[in-house]
């Protein structure tokens, strides 16, 4: 598994597997509940729910599924909701290209990464060919 800044200490709220399309729906609803509980406004709740929906679908479509961690913690003195998506799929060959606006990877999943990045406060990604991809997004309260 790829590690993203493992020194941070977050409180784990939940861990979910994305294996089916129903898992995508359930997991994004769970994220919304946590965002609500964290005291986020309706627009931020919608932003984070939409962002994770894009990421979960990427995992499902391109990596055959994966794992989701939902955490809460202090990041640079922000009360943050942190969602980490871990898959063991084929990895992304050209991250720079995948992160550029207008890039689409065959199945028309264009807006995925750059669009998702715009919806959150922090976006981190690591990918290794044949090992997998880890994406971590954060949204401040």
């Amino acid at each position, binding site marked *: 598994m790829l590690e993203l800044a493992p020194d941070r200490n977050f409180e784990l709220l939940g861990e979910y597997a994305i294996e089916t399309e129903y898992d995508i729906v359930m997991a994004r609803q769970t994220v919304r509940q946590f965002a609500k509980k964290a005291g986020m406004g309706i627009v931020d709740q919608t*932003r984070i729910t939409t962002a994770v929906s894009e990421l979960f679908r990427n995992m499902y479509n391109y990596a055959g599924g994966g794992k989701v961690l939902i955490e809460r913690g202090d990041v640079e003195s922000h009360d943050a909701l942190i969602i980490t998506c871990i898959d063991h799929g084929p990895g992304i060959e050209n991250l720079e290209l995948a992160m550029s606006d207008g890039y689409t990877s065959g199945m028309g999943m264009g807006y995925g990464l750059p669009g998702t990045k715009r919806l959150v406060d922090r976006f981190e990604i690591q990918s290794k060919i044949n090992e997998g991809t880890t994406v971590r997004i954060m949204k401040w309260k």
Partner: protein
Amino acid sequence: MDLHEKRIPIIKIRDFLIVSIQVDMHDKLAIQLQSQILEEIGRTGAKGVLIDISVLEMVDSFIGRMLSGMASMASIMDAAVVIVGMQPAVAITLVELGLEMPGVDTALNMEKGMEMLEKRLKDLEHNFF
């Protein structure tokens, strides 16, 4: 909530189909709804489709593409699609996501959407004669 085996009902009133999406759709359900609506247009000769998404708390790129795809397909079948009741937070998020929905008309609520479709129908008749 049981997400399996859900079907979204399509109601026909006069020349229009009315669809109210009341569930958080998974992708297959969205695709199924798309073909269901197109079949209903074909079967009934409806001239317009009103899709109420006021309960939807989120429209991601997949659902957005499904809606705009449906609008283009319906237009080939001579029916107009109007999306009604989009929540402000959903509209904000769609724009930030960078998702454009070409060919999709929107209205604030069902009544305004119905007026749009009726006006379109009247204009069509007017041009015909």
